[in-house]
Structure formats: structure tokens, C-alpha cells
């Protein structure tokens, strides 16, 4: 009993016709957080989140 639905992944193909690809944008490169103690935050994201 499966719905046969696949996980969604995105290619570079244009799916939103209203969008104007003058840049273009290929995806998220990184996210940077400003934090009070980077060493301890890094330990949290490694331990709890598996980064």
C-alpha cells in the first residue's frame, strides 16, 4: 500500500513562469548566524542536529 509519491527535489528547470531569472539564483550557499559563543553553538549543532 503505497501512494507512489516521490520526495520533491528541485532542478534548475523553470517552473514558475512569472519569475524573472535575471540573476539567476542557484540555491542557498550558506546561512550565517551571529551568536554569543560560536564554539558552544557549534557543539550544539553537531551534537543535537548532526551537522
Amino acid at each position, binding site marked *: 500500500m503505497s501512494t507512489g509519491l516521490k520526495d520533491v527535489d528541485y532542478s534548475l528547470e523553470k517552473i514558475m513562469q512569472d519569475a524573472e531569472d535575471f540573476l539567476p539564483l542557484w540555491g542557498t550557499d550558506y546561512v*550565517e548566524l551571529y551568536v554569543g559563543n560560536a*564554539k558552544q553553538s557549534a557543539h550544539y549543532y553537531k551534537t543535537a542536529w548532526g551537522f
Partner: protein
Amino acid sequence: MAYAGLETGVKDRTSYVLQQDKIRLVLTTPMTPDSPINEHIREHGDGVKVIALWVPDARKAWEETTKRGAKSFMEPIKEEDEHGYVVRSGIHTYGETVHIFVERNEYKGPFMPGYRAWKSHYNPPPTGLKFIDHMVGNVGWGEMNTWVDFYARVMGFAQLVSFDDKDISTDYTALMSKLMRTGNGRLKFPINAPAEGKKKSQIEEYIEFYNGAGVQHIAVATNNIIETVSALKDRGVEFLYVPPTYYDDVLDRVGEIDEDLAVLKEHGVLVDRDDEGYLLQLCTKPVLDRPTMFFEIIQRKGAKSFGKGNFKALFEAIEREQENRGTL
């Protein structure tokens, strides 16, 4: 994965770069009292400063966006080391958040010039997080159109869908949400703004504690939400509580799904369906002391929407937390 600090000749800050599959997090802290990073932390607490976007040409991205009205944060700069070069440029978005355009086609090093590889003997296993599905910004009263217009006009995004206060309200609070997306769907930035309600909405609570607009949550995708959420819980990540009554009629709403409902209920995973399929999602409690930023775990089985059918259940869950904090 990479590190910059005193040992690499950087005196005013320390940055750690962490990676899980396609998700890269950079954690930066100030090292001197006069660093502007202190001011950001004083105002906002810990939070997202940079949403960096991967582009083929960072100089062109800066020129095109500033020409269309974006406020410059950083003029294009080319940095190189023995691994090649990276070009970066930046513009401002909502609040004190910025977008940095990163051009790295000609770079083979660990992250970018100025960083060195960071090896550790301590490497806990990954939790199945694959990529950033979307990042949501909270903006203040009356700012919605400004930022929707910014992403459309300056960044070339299209508006996917819009929810007003009638769509997203509980008995007590309301908010508005507009979903902006690039042509290729790789970047999805929903924007939330407060709406009139009987009590203080989660958006107002965020704006109050963050002292302005900023990133509300980062939604990370997994291919197995049950395994991911179990692993995260075992390691201490706290999730919003979903009342068992949510599951009473969930299959009537979403129809057939691959997952065992009892297991979804055990972990409090929410389900929603759209024309193309369904999705599974769950939000953490704020990961900071200030009730500001949190994470969402999402698994998409065909669905490309954002779980509109779950908004009410999610917001009621957040209201219970607000009640405990005395901020409702």
C-alpha cells in the same frame, strides 16, 4: 568543516562552518568589543545575519539587484588563495538581515578564502537533513507589501500564494503570509506579517524579542521524517506539542499516506495535502532563550505547498507556548 579565527589570522571574529548534506551553517562570534557583531547580538540575541545565495556571477547579481533598488551591503570583492577564488557581494533585505551572493565555480577549498579545514575527533552521525527547503522572514506591521515587492522586483521572485488573516487565524491571533519563490523553485522565502487579533500573535512576539524583522525559521528537508525527528528528540531537540485530537480526522483530510498514523501521532508529525501530493512537517520550539528563531522539519511527498491545513494546529501549539511565556 571549516574555521576562521586567530589561528587563520582573523582577529575580530571567529567562525565555524558546519555542514550536513547540502546545508551549510556558519556560526560567527565577535572577538573584540568594537566589532559591529556585538551590536547585532545586543539588539537581536543570536540570529540569522546572512542568507547567502549561490550565483554564477556575484558581480552581476549585485549590479542587477542594486540597479533595481536594493541597498548595497557589500560591493563585489574577489578573494583568492591556493584553492582558487570566490567573488562575494551583498545587499540588505528585511530588518538587519542581508543576502550575500557567492560565486564559487572556481574554488576547490574547504569553504572560502580566509578559512581553513576544521577537523574534529568528535563527529556525531547526521540526522538525515538534506537541504534547506525554505526560510521564513517575519516583518512588522504594514511591511508585508514592501518585502513582497522587494523579492518580486529586485530579486525576480514570483508570488506563489498568499494567505490573509482569514486563512491563518485561531480564536485568539492572526497573521498574514505570502510565499515568494524563484523561477526554479530552489529558493522559497515566505514572508509573515502580523494581523489584528484578540491577543498578541507569534509574529508580534518575535518582532518584540528580536527587536525588528528577521528570520523566523529555517525549514530543513528530510527523506524520512520519522527517523529524523526520533534522532533529533533523542539528542535533546524540543518540538512543539501537537494534541492527539489532531489525528482524529487527519486521514479524512489528507487521504491515503505511506506512513503509519500511530507513529506520526507518537512524534507529533503533521500532515497536509495539495493537488500534487502531501507533506509531513513538524516545528521545534525556539532554539534560543529569546522566543525568536526555530526550525521546521519537512518531508515532501509530491506536495509543493506549505501545509496550509496545518496552520491552525501549529499556531495553537505556539499559542500554548506563548501562554507559558506570558507573551500571548
